[in-house]
């Protein structure tokens, strides 16, 4: 019988220690992660080579994936005009906004933009920049607008594409592989 009491005594001590150390409580507030990698906004800026007028297309999803829907701003272009095009990427969920384009530029050999447009849209897009290996990047490009038409332009940023694969340096995405970091579509009308 004395062993019995010994067993119970030790059990009681264990249980008391344990229950006193883990009371019910509220979960503490989490630290909100600093989403420094987040891309919320893409600005596609076109500069008219004749007039120097600028036209801006933008895609903004300030709260990231989920939450509110993104805000897309489309614009019209002039037919038969050559444009210089720039892409800027930002994280605008923080104040001041952070530039992501810089990061892409630093890792230019691991990134490439692709420009895909619907067949009816009468434009020609060419890369105007390159990485250290002489392969295109796409932060800077040129757009030559042809005759009056309209359609969709999709801008894709691939991370870790195979830039040496067939056609990739000519802007063909089929053999590029890698992961999509950005894929946004704008409606374009050439007036």
């Amino acid at each position, binding site marked *: 019988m004395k*062993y*019995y009491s*010994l*067993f119970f005594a030790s*059990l009681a001590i*264990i*249980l008391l220690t*344990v229950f006193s150390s*883990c009371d*019910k*409580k*509220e*979960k*503490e*507030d*989490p*630290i*909100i*992660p*600093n*989403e*420094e*990698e987040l*891309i*919320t*906004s*893409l600005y596609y800026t076109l500069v008219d080579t004749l007039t120097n007028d600028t036209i801006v297309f933008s*895609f903004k*999803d*300030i*709260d*990231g*994936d*989920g*939450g*509110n*829907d*993104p805000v897309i701003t489309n614009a019209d272009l002039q037919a038969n005009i050559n444009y210089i095009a720039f892409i800027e990427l930002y994280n605008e*969920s923080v104040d001041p906004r952070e530039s992501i384009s810089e*990061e*892409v530029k630093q*890792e230019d050999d*691991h990134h490439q933009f692709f420009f895909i447009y619907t067949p009816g849209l009468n434009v020609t897009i060419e890369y105007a920049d390159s990485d250290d290996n002489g392969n295109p990047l796409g932060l800077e490009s040129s757009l030559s607008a042809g005759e009056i038409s309209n359609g969709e332009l999709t801008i894709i940023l*691939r*991370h*870790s594409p*195979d830039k040496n694969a067939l056609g990739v340096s000519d802007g063909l995405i*089929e053999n590029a*592989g*890698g*992961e*999509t*970091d*950005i*894929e*946004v579509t704008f409606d374009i009308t050439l007036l």
Partner: protein
Amino acid sequence: MKKGFGIIIILLTHLVYPSFGQDCDQILNAKVIDKNTMEAIPFASVLHVESGQGSITEPNGVFHFHDRCPGDHTLIIMHVGYVNDTVRINIPMDSLLIIKLLAKVEWLESVDIEGDYHAHDKRYIGGNVEKKSISLQSNKNMADMLESIEGVYVLKTGVGVSKPVIHGMYGNRVTTINRGITQSGQQWGNDHGPELDAFGAEKIKVIKGAGVLAYDGNSLGNVVLIESRPIANDSVIHGEVNSVFQSNGLGGTLNASLEKNASWAAWRVIGSLKKMGDSNTPDYYLTNTGKSEMNLSLQLNKILFNKWYNEIYVSTFNTEIAILRGSHVGNVTDLEEAIGRDVPFFTEDNFSYEINPPRQKVQHQLIKYEAKYFTKPFSYLSFKYGGQWDKREEFDVRRGDRSDIPALGLSLISHSFDLGYQHHFKSGHTLNTAYQYTTIDNTNDPETGVLPLIPDYLSWSQSLYAIIEKDKEKWGYDFGVRYNHRSFNIVTISRDVPRTIERFDNEYNNIAISGSIKYVWKPGWTAKLNASYAQRSPEVNELYSNGLHQGVAAIEEGNPDLVSEKSFKTLASIDWNGNEKWHFQFIAYFQPIDNYIFIEPQDEYRLTIRGAYPLYLYKQTKALIYGSDFSLDYDIKRNFSIQFSYSIVRGENKGEDLALINMPSDRLKLNFTYHLKEGEKWGGGSLALLSSYTFKQTRLIEEQDFMPPPDAYFLIGFNAGIQRYYSKMILGLNLRIENMLNTSYRDYLNRMRYYADEVGINVQLGVRLTF
């Protein structure tokens, strides 16, 4: 009735007595073997009743008594893990006496009711998950070892991650109990395997029936049990060194275990090391599918005052798993592109051991203390504490130098307590009852720089259960009831900016009832029937997951209004073991589930800067899961047998008149086994040819998946093993070949099916030394 105490006494004393001289000069020679596996049992205790003398079997299972008189003798053979046997013999004998011991389900207790439908599986070579089989397959994941059991399939993510599917149940619906403690971790993801090392375990079992109610967790009637083995009753050090080499992935596994029943306590140390590189399909390397693992555990047992059993178990599990590089996709377009390819993106021409992102790094620490105080044989009070710390980090391919910062970082701490009582009645009934309390504290690592998919939370669970059981030779039954209360305190981060913190409380009450009967109506014929009602409350991922699930290129949204699932399962089995040559078993189960929780793709896409993602919502429906397992063994000759089995599982979403996803397709197995003759020095030898045919999953419609389920496939394997007995040790050699025809195939239950083929031929060589 005295067996329980008898075993304790044997543990404390050593049955080696000096022999005293007699006039008689006969020698009594006998060999003790396992009735099911036909393998020698070393270190079993043998008592010669007439003289009171004892002996211990040698590594080859043989023992001798010298100087016996002619006439009748009585021997009692005892070994932990086996049912004691009493044998009457008459000497002189003309041949070696073979004594067959029957493996016992439990030691010191009879709580568990084994999922006996696979009990005969012990005879399959490489088809059981007994201790030896665990060692031979120690290069695999625990779930992969279970696949040899009929009705068990494996849900995989690539090569390194696997989890069991038991009678159509997987993930949150299957509970894993590791050495008595409910495994806690982030098992909610199908790409998260159970984080434990099965090496050194006595058995891995799948249990059903009322016994399931004794385990905490949130299962719907299926529990995987990894059972500790009692430490050998010997003051000499025993142990095992085991090594497996595999050709596919050039992998090496090294396990070692040492144990001793020292005077201060019985102890055991187990260590495992694994290293594997990129696996290869018949045509290309699966770039970035390597793995490394390092595990260590310590077990201490001590019996105080011959009544008070104490056990401490501490283990650490550490693994790093590479995920196929080509399976990492940014959005649905990437996924669709990857599906169309013959060879996955990022496939290298060279083999490598490197583990690059995407990869998972998991650490799981466990500490357990268990005590049992025996008031009578088979009756005891018990206390169990389990503390677990699980840290999971998942690394993605990221911009900047962020690939070394986890994209998912979760840390989970859990404490569980179990206060129980088992009583063995004179009538033969055994009653088990316990109160269980578990807390879980799950925290996301804010360093990830990514909004968490699963929120931070605390959860508390309290349960009470009682199971009564009686098992006789002719019939038996069990009946159990369990009540469980779970509550959650959940803290989420809003998806809107500025980010705010939101708090939620959820509470659930779950009831489970289960009863089974067994009836042997003719010798050899056994029928069993089990009916159970169970409730499973939703888990945190089903309630509150929110955001992009990168691995599946989908936006997943939990549903805080989910209610508990209600399942009513009926399972019936018929077993025929009538003569030496034939054995068959048939199992059928039928499980309607109300409020079945599942994730459903919506017609809606969520537009993000990375393109449009399909939206998946957690929903509830009326589901029905049913199926059957059939197996047949035929011994053509004493040493040559054929095993045939066929399993089907069907899952229906009754609410929408669709098939459930992730349901295994039919599988047919045909194995031929040849046992070599048992010798003095060589034994346990066998050759087996294994084949399986997995049917195509044809019940899904196109809208349910990104691509149609893969075609049916046929695989052939080969296994050969032999043991050499030395005076103080056994050397085991084993050769196993999987996918012998080097077939290219894909499996519906592997998420890698979208991207790449399964692994090709794999030759595995195992060396095992037990002493």
